[in-house]
């Protein structure tokens, strides 16, 4: 099911309106220094009133049956507002992993809670080297002898890892990288918050000391599942990045129109004007490539994996460029703690590297192109 143009516009404006009141700069600044790094009451409203967590989940699991196009609209807005919430970890990373695993039992068990906003979830893949390549995972899962499994190892960079009710973890079995579900209350699991470059995105280090775990999907299927998840996650991230980049462009142009120096608005100087035009070109490219990738995902088009890699690379570059130049356009004030420009710079840099960074996504693009 894909919404019509005007429905997408309505979705965008209702999400934007919600975030303008609930995720103001003031709210973001307060939350990024608190624990948990989100407001449970606002999260409950986002899931209840706006049904944001249910939007792109299948109806059979309590969702509303929409897909990546609609999810992309929401992510552009959450990225624009730097919304501190478990949305990206739960709805994009974890829920899409459950769907990609093809494990109907795991989906039936966890997705209705996610759709209703009762369950938050995290995906634990990367370890201390930050790699999302399942082949490089060293955490292990062993049968416990009673038909169950236990996981041992350590995961890092786990988005919302200290607060998630459900943790999906990639661990190695004799069959290869495999996916497991772990309850946050499980014995042997400890989670500590990590200091983060981007304070608006909470990350954790999880230690698994013989933690009881339930297999998700086939034993050894972790590589295949993660390849799909990375495509989806990179398009979701690209939408978020495009939204953040657009916000930086808007802030810069607004400032360039109104700030006077040397007796004229700084936006009338060609050097500033061209900087803004260059930002616009990047933002247009990022939006086009992430929206087009989302459309191809929704249509199950074979061109999707290539488009996903393009969107990821394109939006990463656009956001970092826009966030950097936003500070430059603002001059000295842009370099202060009080000004929000650094929050976007932090988010942009962190997002560029979250799933491995340019060296990784460039090779993924070439791989998807068969080069």
């Amino acid at each position, binding site marked *: 099911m894909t919404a019509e143009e005007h429905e997408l516009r309505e979705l965008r404006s209702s999400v934007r309106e919600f975030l303008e009141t609930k995720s103001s700069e003031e709210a973001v600044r307060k939350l990024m220094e608190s624990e948990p790094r989100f407001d449970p009451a606002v999260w409950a409203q986002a899931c209840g009133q706006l049904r944001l967590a249910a939007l792109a989940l299948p109806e059979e699991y309590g969702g509303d049956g929409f897909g990546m196009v609609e999810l992309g609209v929401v992510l552009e807005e959450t990225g624009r507002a730097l919304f501190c919430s478990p949305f990206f970890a739960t709805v994009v990373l974890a829920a899409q992993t459950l769907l990609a695993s093809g494990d109907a039992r795991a989906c039936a068990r966890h997705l209705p809670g996610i759709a209703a906003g009762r369950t938050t979830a995290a995906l634990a893949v990367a370890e201390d080297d930050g790699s999302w390549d399942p082949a490089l995972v060293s955490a292990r899962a062993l049968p416990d002898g009673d038909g169950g499994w236990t996981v041992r190892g350590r995961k890092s960079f786990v988005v919302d890892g200290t607060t998630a009710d459900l943790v999906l973890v990639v661990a190695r079995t004799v069959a290869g990288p495999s996916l497991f579900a772990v309850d946050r209350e499980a014995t042997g699991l400890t989670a500590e918050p990590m200091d983060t470059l981007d304070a608006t995105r909470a990350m954790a280090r999880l230690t698994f000391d013989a933690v009881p775990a339930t297999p998700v999907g086939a034993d050894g299927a972790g590589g295949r599942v993660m390849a799909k998840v990375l495509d989806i996650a990179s398009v979701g991230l690209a939408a978020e990045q495009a939204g953040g980049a657009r916000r930086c462009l808007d802030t810069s142009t607004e400032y360039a129109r109104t700030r006077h120096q040397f007796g004229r608005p700084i936006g009338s100087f060609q050097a500033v*004007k061209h900087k803004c*035009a260059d930002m616009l070109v990047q933002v247009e490219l990022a939006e*086009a490539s992430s929206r087009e990738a989302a459309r191809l995902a929704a249509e199950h088009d074979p061109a999707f994996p290539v488009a996903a890699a393009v969107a990821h690379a394109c939006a990463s570059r656009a956001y970092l460029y826009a966030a950097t130049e936003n500070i430059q356009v603002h001059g000295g004030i842009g370099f202060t703690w009080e000004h929000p420009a650094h929050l976007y710079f932090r988010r942009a840099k962190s997002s560029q590297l979250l799933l491995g960074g340019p060296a990784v996504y460039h*090779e993924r693009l070439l791989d998807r192109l068969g080069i």
Partner: protein
Amino acid sequence: MEQDMQDFADEARRFLNAHATKAPDRAALTWGVGDDSTAYFSSLPPEQEHEQVRRAREWQRIRYENGFGWITGPVEYGGRGLTFVHDLLYDAVESEYEVADTGVIGVVGLGMIGPTILAHAQPHLKDRWLPAMYRGDAIACQLFSEPGAGSDLASVSTRAVRQDDGDWLLNGQKVWTSVAQHSGIGLALTRTDPDAPKHRGITAFLVPMDTPGVEVRPLRQMTGGTDFNEVFLTDVRIPDDHRLGEVDGGWTVALTTLMNERATVGSEGAGPVAAALSPDHLSALMRATWTWDDRALRARLAELLVDVLATRHLNARALQGLRAGVAPGPEMSVSKLLHGQNLTRAAHFVSEVLGPRIIADTGQWGTYAWTELLLATPALRILGGTEEIMKNILAERVLGLPREPVTTAAKEVRP
């Protein structure tokens, strides 16, 4: 609508099957086979160029006579009266066939001048010239730029002076005029009121290129080719009914052409340069030069392809907008900027893959041939409005930034 499109596509396919041959599959590119030209501008010797123009005219005539020469044109002037979507569909079907390159007719004449004539000319001019243009008989050129007026077109100084019998007498010099040597008509911007603010004293005329006093001289450009020309206008007498738009109202006419120019230049199109931007071609080049596993080059290739593919997505979405009835706006400047930048980056990427093989000709297929594109790239940042002008347009018209303050010198012509 769906059925109508299907019927139209079938009709196009029947026409093409009868008059053209299927093109080989582009994915099946073999290194060392076929034409290795990467020319953006033509640099053929005159006799070969004339042969190419002849083939272009012939294919355009066949298209026109079979109802595919002017798909979106009004029926009363020889068009087919169909939509923009039909036009796109035909292009998609035609791209599967080997046909003559009609760029010499299409890019300037049909892409920019045709729509301008349709919007601004008197009916008798439309009757006389539109069918001739779309049939391939009358190639058209744009007599806009002058030695003193490049991207600042409103500074044109070619004079048009009204005579006692109502005719106009044109005097001046135009430059960088593409395809003028093949053209039957030209659209000229002239200064009719030197005292008016500079955008307001301009008038547009349609000039038959065989009018006495019109002299076309080839202008050799840095590629070595002579795509462009200088056009000298000496006492060229043009009847008043060849005027487009109002007296002193020519700037509006020019804007129609410029909007279409940016839309045309920004679109990627087919032809030799498309190969320069194709992942297949670029990866084949890396295989052939044993640079396949050079990590630095692979990263650069990926960055280049990100731009190329993302630009395609941007254009695809702009086309979806056009289909939905949104008029082409300043956003087309984004496409134009990106197209030039992508080709430039591709040329420099390829030159680093080839290394010394691009600085002198060893006779090896697909090596020195890339100098054609490389030498064309500086022009891509200038033609159709310089990069700087395009960025001003984006900043002022899309982002709403204030205009550059008018300087004392400019105030003299723009009070």
